[in-house]
């Protein structure tokens, strides 16, 4: 087992553990904190795939911005301190169990089909200067998505402001 495989397994365990803790947490705030653990695991996976730029951006955006936004949103709810923890199971757990088992079965089937091919491939094997090439791509091949992205961000901003200011 190489070092990369070892780190991959560690990161995956971190992600899976955090995700499990997140969905079973009694308090919303603690659930959000476990979500941050999941984001960190995703960042490590990006770095392992030789896409360091995306890993850093993951930390910057998801942990630095989106997680903070979610934490603030949780703090605006009445039970901000988490002193009244939520119920452990909702009434729909049989349906959820069926769907989760189906999904698990599909994934296991895919893994079994993949066979013994377990090595990690680089997402961008021949890229030395990721940020530069990304910039060039933004300006040439992917210009329309670039500009549309700013439009989408504007719509999100205005929409969220409209919703929030109404309160």
């Amino acid at each position: 087992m190489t070092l990369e495989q070892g780190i991959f397994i560690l990161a995956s365990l971190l992600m899976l553990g955090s995700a499990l803790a997140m969905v079973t947490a009694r308090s919303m705030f603690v659930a959000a904190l476990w979500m941050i653990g999941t984001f960190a695991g995703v960042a490590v996976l990006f770095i392992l795939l030789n896409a360091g730029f995306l890993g850093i951006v993951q930390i910057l955006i998801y942990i630095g911005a989106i997680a903070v936004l979610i934490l603030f949103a949780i703090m605006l709810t009445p039970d901000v301190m988490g002193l009244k923890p939520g119920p452990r199971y909702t009434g729909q757990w049989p349906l959820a169990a069926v769907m989760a088992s189906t999904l698990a079965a599909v994934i296991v089937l895919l893994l079994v089909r993949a066979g013994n091919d377990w090595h990690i491939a680089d997402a961008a094997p021949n890229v030395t200067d990721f940020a530069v090439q990304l910039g060039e791509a933004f300006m040439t091949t992917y210009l329309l998505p670039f500009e549309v992205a700013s439009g989408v961000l504007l719509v999100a901003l205005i929409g969220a402001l409209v919703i929030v200011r109404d309160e």
Partner: protein
Amino acid sequence: MREYAVLGAFLLVGIVLPAAVVIGGWLLGPKRANPVKNSTYECGLETVGETWIQFKVQYYVYALIFVIFDIEVVYLYPWAVAYNRLGLFALVEALIFAGILVAGLFYAWRKGALAWF
């Protein structure tokens, strides 16, 4: 890849070192707990009411605008790095991009979303 390994080493030491310091402090300090010391602090009085406050939605608005601009920044950084290799059209495109978002900022300003009170 080696550079990220160094970052991993820093992360490890960065977690272990402060944790060791806290544990050291816990070992060295006295431990005489009593209910008054352990109660929540409120200017030396007993806590009044539940620990829940009506929060200003303003905190959320700031975090929201921050998310939007953070993503914009992430888009602008590759542009800045590749700027030297591209022509003037890169400037125009980035101007459009930034302009749209600055328009959003001005909208938020006019709607009073940027004011604290």
